[in-house]
């Protein structure tokens, strides 16, 4: 377990190798091999570490490894006197991070394998670049998961954002892809704004950034009745989580992120990165459980996001977008769970969701691959015949997400709904409704894609894809076909996971012991000192079973409804769209949220930027230039003064002299006799005066 730092480092090495050397020199196979093998070793190490963790007694399952100093201690005042700002490169393994570790390395490995097939049509350097990014993503994601302090987690947090940016924009020549990448990064950064402020406040409040120390300190504080400092911390952290985990109001980037290659969508935008927000909230369960007001906010944001995304998902026609909204919706569920205090249920759903959503995304990737980059479900249909493996595995995924027992989704989702019911019936109502919609849109997807009549283009000539040509295959299309083995094998593995992953969390009402909850419990309880989660009341097992039965029935009903509408009577769906034309339009336009943000935030910023630039040129620089002009003007004034007043006076004197000289020079005849005569006169005058004065 002391080698857990190797787990993130290995994919990091793979990324470095592929990035520095691979893009130029590696063949496609070598690049893939490097990436897959580093992930495989990381997975093995994770399993070993996890087993090591299991070997410990339940209350000692915490193992921290400090690799090196990062930010050495610097004194800094905190709320409790002078503290020391210090962050080491330290990684911690506990039940929660252990579970995430397995999810990330396991699903990451599968998706790496899948990508080898998926990305095979790209040019050689592109493949290495792709694997470099993908490995880099795993490096950061594992750093996020294993980081033992807020700041190390933030490293991973930002890093996965970068990789998400790079991978969404992988086909960078496509405007929409680079737009989507940029949008993802910037929206995430808005969340990060909140997150980093939350981190600062954590340090200021507790004098440390280590998760464990913070949790222990927080556990000693009273549960806040009003809105205190813990609430503020949690709110800031939750803002970060809404960015990364695509919750209202920052969810808008995730659907656009589907511009990236499908394995990326599966890994980053379904299984791992987007769950980082949930993971972070769970990691700070002690903090959150001391801030009930924020918990309420989390629950409501979660359930509203779940509901809203599900409604949008009902009408989308792009196969990946349906899944994207479904992801948003399921993430909402997880936040609902954490919001009502069921952190274990949230984490459990996180894990099961990782399986079936990765499965669904990879399946959709397989479909898109087989359909020559076609993503519009209206041009699919009847694909079951062409790609059976994909169909069956995806169907398993859909059943799992719809919450039909005994597949994985049933247990985790039901646990959440049950705990929500205990907390608030209103939340439960919305949650249950969302579950129904989930079942409906998932089977709408399955039905439109695989069942019914084939509506796609004829083969032999290129498919009428919309501008997907840049990323497209280089070869002629021979009709829908099953994907290669490297792609279907991960599907099958994930399908197995989607079926069985739920059994680790069988609730007591069904005779299980909810292993996962007990396993994760120490992570949520300040490592042995937790006392807050007094379960107010339990329902009887019968009532719990009743709730389960109800939700299963509703889900089954929704599935049948979807079957009727999209397979038996395909016209019925259009009919319905016409009947509810108004709501339908609102939904297809995603509640116009993008337009709203575009008109307010984006436009506002851009106009503000342009406005300020004008200000900069006119006012600030204007002042400078104005000062310059004033100087020049005053110098001109001085010049005028100098020329006409000062110089004028001098010239006046000269002029007067010159004019006067015209008068007096008459005397200057040049004739000596005149001069002599004048002298004589003078002599006479003086003599006369002399004589008379006597």
């Amino acid at each position, binding site marked *: 377990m002391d080698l857990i730092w190797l787990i993130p480092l290995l994919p990091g090495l793979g990324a470095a190798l592929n990035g520095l050397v691979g893009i130029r020199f590696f063949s496609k196979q070598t690049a893939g091999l490097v990436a897959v093998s580093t992930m495989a070793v990381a997975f093995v190490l994770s399993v070993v570490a996890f087993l090591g963790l299991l070997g410990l007694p339940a209350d000692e399952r915490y193992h921290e490894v400090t690799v090196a100093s990062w930010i050495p201690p610097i004194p800094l005042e905190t709320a409790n006197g002078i503290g020391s700002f210090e962050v080491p490169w330290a990684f911690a393994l506990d039940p929660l991070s252990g579970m995430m570790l397995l999810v990330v390395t396991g699903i990451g490995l599968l998706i790496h394998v899948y990508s080898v097939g998926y990305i095979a049509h790209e040019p050689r350097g592109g493949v290495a670049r792709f694997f470099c990014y993908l490995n880099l993503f795993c490096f950061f994601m594992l750093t996020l998961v294993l980081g033992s302090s807020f700041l190390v987690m933030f490293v991973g947090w930002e890093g996965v954002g970068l990789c998400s940016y790079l991978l969404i924009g992988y086909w960078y020549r496509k405007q929409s892809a680079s737009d989507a990448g940029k949008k993802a990064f910037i929206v995430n950064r808005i969340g990060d*704004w909140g997150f980093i402020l939350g981190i*600062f406040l954590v340090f200021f409040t507790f004098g440390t950034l280590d998760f464990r120390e913070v949790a222990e300190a927080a556990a000693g504080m009273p549960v806040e009745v009003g809105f205190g400092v813990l609430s503020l911390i949690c709110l800031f952290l939750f803002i970060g989580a809404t960015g990364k985990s695509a919750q209202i109001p920052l969810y808008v980037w995730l659907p656009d992120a589907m511009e990236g290659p499908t394995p990326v969508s599966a890994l980053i935008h379904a299984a791992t990165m987007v769950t980082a927000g949930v993971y972070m909230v769970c990691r700070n369960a002690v903090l959150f459980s001391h801030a009930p007001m924020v918990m309420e906010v989390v629950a409501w944001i979660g359930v509203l996001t779940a509901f809203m995304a599900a409604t949008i998902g009902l009408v989308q026609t792009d196969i990946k977008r349906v899944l994207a909204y479904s992801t948003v919706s399921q993430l909402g569920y997880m936040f609902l769970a954490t919001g009502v205090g069921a952190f274990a249920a949230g984490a459990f759903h996180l894990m099961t969701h990782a399986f079936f959503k990765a499965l669904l995304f990879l399946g959709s990737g397989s479909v898109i691959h087989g359909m020559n980059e076609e993503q519009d479900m209206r041009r699919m249909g009847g694909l079951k015949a062409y790609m059976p493996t994909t169909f069956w595995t995806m169907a398993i995924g859909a059943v799992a997400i719809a919450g039909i027992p005994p597949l994985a989704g049933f247990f985790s989702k039901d646990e959440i709904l049950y705990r929500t019911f205990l907390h608030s019936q209103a939340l439960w109502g919305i949650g249950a409704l969302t579950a129904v919609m989930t079942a409906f849109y998932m089977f709408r997807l399955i039905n439109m894609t695989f069942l019914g009549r084939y509506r796609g283009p004829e083969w032999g000539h290129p498919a009428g894809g919309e501008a997907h040509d840049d990323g497209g295959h280089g070869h002629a299309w021979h009709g829908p076909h099953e994907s290669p083995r490297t792609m279907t094998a991960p599907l099958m593995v994930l399908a197995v996971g989607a079926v069985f992953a739920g059994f680790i969390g069988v609730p007591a009402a069904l005779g299980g012991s909810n292993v996962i909850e007990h396993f994760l419990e120490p992570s949520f309880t300040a490592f042995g000192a937790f006392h807050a989660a007094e379960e107010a009341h339990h329902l009887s097992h019968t009532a719990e079973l009743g709730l389960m039965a109800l939700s299963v029935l509703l889900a089954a009903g929704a599935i049948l409804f979807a079957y009727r509408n999209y397979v038996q009577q395909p016209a019925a769906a259009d009919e319905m769209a016409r009947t509810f034309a108004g709501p339908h339009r609102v939904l297809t336009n995603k509640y116009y949220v993008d337009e709203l943000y575009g008109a307010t935030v984006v436009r506002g910023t851009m106009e503000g930027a342009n406005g300020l630039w004008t200000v900069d040129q006119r006012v600030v620089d204007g002042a400078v230039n104005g000062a310059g002009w004033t100087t020049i003007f005053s110098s001109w004034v001085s010049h005028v003064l100098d020329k006409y007043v000062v110089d004028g006076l001098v010239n006046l004197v000269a002029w007067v002299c010159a004019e006067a000289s015209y008068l007096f020079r008459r005397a200057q005849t040049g004739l000596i006799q005149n001069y002599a005569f004048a002298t004589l006169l003078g002599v006479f005058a003086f003599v006369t005066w002399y004589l008379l004065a006597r």
Partner: protein
Amino acid sequence: MSNAADTPSLLSLILFTPLAGALVLLFVGKRQVDLIRWIANATAFLGFLVSLPLWFVYDSANPDWQFVEQMEWIPSIGAQYFLGVDGFSVLLVLLTTMMGVIAVLSSWNAIQTRVKEYYIFLLMLQTGMIGAFVSLDFLLFFLFWEVMLVPMYFLIGIWGSDNRLYSAIKFFLFTLVGSVIMLLGILAVYFYHQDVTGVYTFDITQFHELNIPSDLQWWIFLAFFLGFAVKVPMFPFHTWLPDAHTDAPMAAVLLKMGTYGFIRFSLPILPEATQAFVPAVVLLSIVGIVYGALVAMAQRDWKRLVAYSSVSHMGMVMLGMFALTPVGITGSIVQQLNHGISTGALFLLVGVVYERRHTRMIAEYGGLSKVMPVYAAIFLVMTMSSIGLPTLNGFIGEVLILQGIFVVNKTWAFFAASGIVLGAAYMLWLYQRTMFGTVDNPKNENLPDISAREFATFVPLLLLAVWIGLYPKPFLDRLETSVDKVMMRVNADYTPRFAIAAAGDADAQRLTVDAAAPGVEATGTLVLPDVPVRGGAR
């Protein structure tokens, strides 16, 4: 100053190596362009080599000035030739000499007219900068400070971009006005010192122990502020920057002059005024951060965009410094290095494409990832470094600064942190517009990727970016005592870490003595001395 004994006149050597190179260049015929280039590169590289001992020999545990050189200069007014470094100057001198190498190397093809004069000015500029960083005599500092103006004026005026004369004059006037007023401030300190002690001196170490009455501090602070804020440049004084950025790597260092001035002079000499001015300076810094970022977003010229991002980043630097917390000041210095590294690199990157296309309009580019992949990759790393992605250098600086300011005032931190969103927005948008998309402009289709020489200029910057990002400890260690010395001046209650360490040593020694003393039980259990682990109580 024990270690300095081994290297008696290292600072003078570092200081005058570039100048010597410039002198040699004077005697080379102007037609021998290649010879000139080789000499200039060799000089710059030599300058870097001789500065390297600073990194290794500098004793970060020693709070005194190191590598001190002191002799008479103008005895009649008490001016001395007085050099010495602390943690701040060590890092900044090293940054300068390294950037000097990069600047000279990157000019190889970029400069085709008046090559000889160009390199002479560049080397002179380097001497000026180093001189300002190592001077411990205020008049000597001012001399170097003004010496920098002249080569910079010509560098902008002759080799600048369009409208270069306007830019050069604007730069010159801006900084000259600032420094003249600063000189008044210097003289005020000088005469006040004479008043109190009866000694005429420009010795900064003496000034650092001066307690000037607060109303006089107030005026002197204003005078210094004007001089330094222009160089930083802080918000309302920034408009010379976008016009003046010609020689990118050196200009990126040039901005450090202002912030260095603040930390070396304003803070320790005028602690009371500094505290009084904190709200004003912080306000200007935050306005600078947000304003610079927003204006950067509106730019259509690549280089101006980077220049405005500089305004934003330097706002961050000032913010951290005026947090007046050890974390904030440390972050501020680190961020100065980061700014030198990442903004310097971004300017170089603009230079690379400018050399190929002779335009800096963003709209002229697009899709360069396709034609210049290595370039795009370097640009990506530097973009990320600039927007503060963790594991790269920018993050360390930003997080220290913001944490440093956060404990002082949460509202300030809230607004300042918005810079991380806006920074991402304008840089990524720039990246998208230049690197992504299809190659629409046929002129861009056959651009060659960066050459080995160009690549060589980026390698040290990339390495440093990663180094500071992953393991900033060596840098932070070197700053420790210097930050503490500044903190002791601005905050009388502050207990510096070196004092604690010394106390710890003393205690440890006492402990060993005690242990050796007879009568102590030799159980081997050591009772830890009562060392105050956290800083002084407040």
